[in-house]
């Protein structure tokens, strides 16, 4: 299933498109225009990934600040793991 085939069937693409659409946040689905669903979808997916990236960046920043105010003992890590289980 690598990209060696000349043409992917339209049906397969449409299936992927609807699956991908199901992953995106609600708001983008409602505004989806019939006119060019593919390009709309690509744009929404791109925006969504970027916003997830920003979230990861912000959370990483927060985490790095928190870590700098704590001891660097490894027992801390074990404890956190146990809290989260």
């Amino acid at each position, binding site marked *: 299933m*690598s*990209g060696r*085939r000349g043409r*992917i069937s339209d049906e*397969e*693409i449409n299936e*992927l*498109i609807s*699956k*991908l659409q*199901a*992953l*995106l946040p609600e708001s983008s689905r409602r505004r989806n225009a019939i006119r*060019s669903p*593919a*390009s709309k979808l*690509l*744009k929404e*997916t*791109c*925006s*969504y*990934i*970027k916003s*997830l*990236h*920003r*979230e*990861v*960046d912000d*959370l*990483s*920043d*927060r*985490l*790095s600040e*928190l*870590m*700098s*105010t*704590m*001891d*660097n*003992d*490894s*027992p*801390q*890590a*074990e*404890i*956190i*793991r*146990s*809290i*989260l289980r």
Partner: protein
Amino acid sequence: MQGRNCTTGKSSTAFKQELLKNLLRGLRARTDACAFSAMSVHERKRAVKSSADVAMAAARGVGARWPKAILAAAAASTSSNRSSCQVRSSRFRRVARRCFFREKRRGPAAGVAAASSVDVARRLVRRRTMALRKVIPGGDAAMDEASLLREAMDYVVHLRAQVDVLRRVSEAMQIRSSLLRYAPSSIHGQEASSSMRQ
């Protein structure tokens, strides 16, 4: 609830646990090499972000391309120290360039009825496909549309999990450090004594 059609090989919880384990190991390894308190703020942030991405990629394993791309980039940056700094800043550059890909709608050019809306639509799809490739690690590699969409889905699903894990770790650390500050002796018996004593 979204994600019903998600294409992950592992269950979501198993993946998050794996990610968490990798993250903690990675962070510990970094702090063993160089104490966080000794790093600059910027270096620290970079270390955490990199650990988070590597943890996510390692937890995903095979079955998608993006993990390999992340791990390759991380390996390259540790050896040359050129950095994930470049990756970070180019991420922000990409955000700024979003406007660049805004659709330009033109009326049919005089006398060139063949520049149809189909062509415009096709060009737009192409531009946006290129934009999508840029935000997916390894998306630049040659792959057909269908594979790219699959990569995008896979990446989104696992990015969400990464966000969730990071959020929980931050919250747990926050709770923990406020507990320590105000009532160090009242933390659960076992772990309290040895590690918590300041």
